[in-house]
């Protein structure tokens, strides 16, 4: 469902967003924004925590090889299996191989961005393995065959009536439209699957290098089911999820739920180190972890862009983003949306595929203000715009010749005082041609891309003249 297209046309996608999406998405984002604000207000050391969180992530990125080696050693000594996957195809092949070895017919999955990134469900289904999403929202969109509209509440764009119709059709029942009863139906349906599936698949929020521990944060309990009931557990986790130790984890656990949902902690936080020791304690008898690269080690090379790998996937940046709130998750054409998607997808898929995404932002900076690990998202957006325009080691420049000419002329005009002043004097000449009701509302292409949305005021004087007038009118040093 989230196999990435070869070109992500954000502008085109966003023009076809159904009218129901923005209102549903805004209902969710408004709730998360106010929840986050309340939790943050309770914690006087919040800003200090963010700084420490950011510093630890920075440190981990800079020493990632050491921590990954340590993590691998510890998982192995706890009796778990570690696999390294360079690409999405490698990762799918590894999971498929494990599944076939164990004669798996059904796999239950808890929510995982990494498996969506690599399209694992498709790969398993193609091999005849039934693969069931068990997070309620993910289950609904799997039945509907669509992608997620929001990172935390992926099915928020669907009304309860639509969910009921979907359940009625797919489960062959007569489903009521009450959300509580619908959740109960999902509980009963999926309970059967948990009890019969041979394999549980999960993602992971953090990997603790100190002890080789997988940390999973969930609310519904499906993540615990997937790792507690089946005898085989396979976790798919990006290499960027590694952290040094348990002390570091205290910082991220305090930041994550507060930033994501406005909870102090999510309902269930699990700490899994290798397989179970004793027969009667439940938990998987066999534990595998796939460490996924899929472009991450390449991202590390860009000292500005690499900060995207600090992300702990809380979704706070999307919740405050004016662009995301109006287009929702689909328009970003990838498993991850919002501002973080706009800086991750181009680096992961390559700038040619996602060259529109760095422009899917007003650069207002709200995302950077709420990011729990202080990722400078607007700085990275600007950096990627430059990479797109001027070309980078992965792609040729995309800037068009007319735009390049205009940009050169503009820099010329701004560099030389007399050219600028001459141009500014010249501009009012065009006023009579386009003036309508006191505004310039009907400029020719390409300026009409602006004026068909909002008119320009007529050109009068240039800025320098205006500034001089203001200064002399108000006294020499007032408007400074």
């Amino acid at each position: 469902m989230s196999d990435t297209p070869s070109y992500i046309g954000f502008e085109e996608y966003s023009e076809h967003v159904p009218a129901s999406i923005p209102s549903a998405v805004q209902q969710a984002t408004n709730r998360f924004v106010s929840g986050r604000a309340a939790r943050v207000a309770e914690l006087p050391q919040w800003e200090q925590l963010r700084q420490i969180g950011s510093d630890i992530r920075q440190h981990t990125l800079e020493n990632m090889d050491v921590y990954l080696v340590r993590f691998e050693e510890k998982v192995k000594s706890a009796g778990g299996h570690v696999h390294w996957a360079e690409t999405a195809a490698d990762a799918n092949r590894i999971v498929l191989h494990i599944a076939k070895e164990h004669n798996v017919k059904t796999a239950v999955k808890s929510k995982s961005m990494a498996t969506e990134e690599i399209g694992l469900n498709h790969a398993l289904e193609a091999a005849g393995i039934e693969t069931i999403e068990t997070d309620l929202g993910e289950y609904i969109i799997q039945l509907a065959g669509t992608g997620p509209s929001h990172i935390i509440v992926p099915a928020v764009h669907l009304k309860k009536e639509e969910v009921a119709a979907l359940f009625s059709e797919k489960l062959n029942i007569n489903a009521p439209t009450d959300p509580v009863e619908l959740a109960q139906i999902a509980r009963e349906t999926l309970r059967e699957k948990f009890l019969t599936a041979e394999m549980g698949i999960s993602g992971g929020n953090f990997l603790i290098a100190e002890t080789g521990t997988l940390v999973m944060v969930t609310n519904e309990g499906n993540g615990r089911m997937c790792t507690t009931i089946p005898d085989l557990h396979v976790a798919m986790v990006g290499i960027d999820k590694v952290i040094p130790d348990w002390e570091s984890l205290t910082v991220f656990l305090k930041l994550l739920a507060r930033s994501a949902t406005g909870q102090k902690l999510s309902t269930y936080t699990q700490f899994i180190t290798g397989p179970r020791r004793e027969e009667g304690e439940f938990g998987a008898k066999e534990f595998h972890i796939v460490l996924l690269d899929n472009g991450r080690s390449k991202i590390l090379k860009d000292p500005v862009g690499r900060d995207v790998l600090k992300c702990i996937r809380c979704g706070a940046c999307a919740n405050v983003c004016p662009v995301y709130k109006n287009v929702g998750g689909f328009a970003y054409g990838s498993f991850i949306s919002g501002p973080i998607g706009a800086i991750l997808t181009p680096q992961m898929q390559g700038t040619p595929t996602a060259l529109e995404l760095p422009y899917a932002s007003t650069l207002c900076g709200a995302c950077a203000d709420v990011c729990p690990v202080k990722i400078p998202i607007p700085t990275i957006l600007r950096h990627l715009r430059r990479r797109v325009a001027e070309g980078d080691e992965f792609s040729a420049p995309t800037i068009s010749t007319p735009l390049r000419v205009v940009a050169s002329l503009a820099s010329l005009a701004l560099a030389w005082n007399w050219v600028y002043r001459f141009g500014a004097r010249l501009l009012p000449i065009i006023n009579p041609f386009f003036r309508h009701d006191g505004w310039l509302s009907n400029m020719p292409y390409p300026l009409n891309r602006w004026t068909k949305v909002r008119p320009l005021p007529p050109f009068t004087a240039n800025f320098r003249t205006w500034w001089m007038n203001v200064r002399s009118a108000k006294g020499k040093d007032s408007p400074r």
Partner: protein
Amino acid sequence: MTNPILENIRRSLGRTDHTPLGLRPAIHESRHAESVDSEIERFLVEIKKLSGVGQKLSPLDIESALKILVAEQNIHKATVWDTQYLKQLNVAEHLQSLGVDLISSNADKHEIAQCDLGITEADFILPETGTLVLRSSAEKPRAVSLVPRVHLAVVRPEMLRADMHQVFAEAREDRYLVFITGPSRTADIELTVTLGVHGPKNLFVWMIEE
């Protein structure tokens, strides 16, 4: 044996496999505990905010409290952790005398799935967040706090820890640990908060004070 991913990381960062590890930034201080009474109060308030039911009980009240729980929650089958303290409280005997079917907590997954009630004992509790911390062993199976629709956790004041720093210091070598902060919840359909989507719908926490 070379690992291409590690090679790529080192190349991108300009490191070799001999580059020493830098110093990890210092971590913030842990929260400081208040008096035991106020920590217990805080813990119970948080449990309530999370839609759980918390109460203080004396060991002598266990039988009557179980009687009410079994009646109100319509409990027919239950499974109980095989721990010293729960035996000392005679939890299993009380349930049997109330006519509840007891299933071994090491029983098959299908049998555990038949249980209405799972009873555990938290190993640590965190008052700031209303969190129960449960360890895992053959006596403390993971499924008991997860699969039945009602979860009762018995806790005592000595399980209080000021912050997760203290819990991790004691339990970081454990092979499994779970933090439980309220009953299972979702808001995935129209943002309507729904309890008990996969894990327990009802969470009871009994603080036993001698």
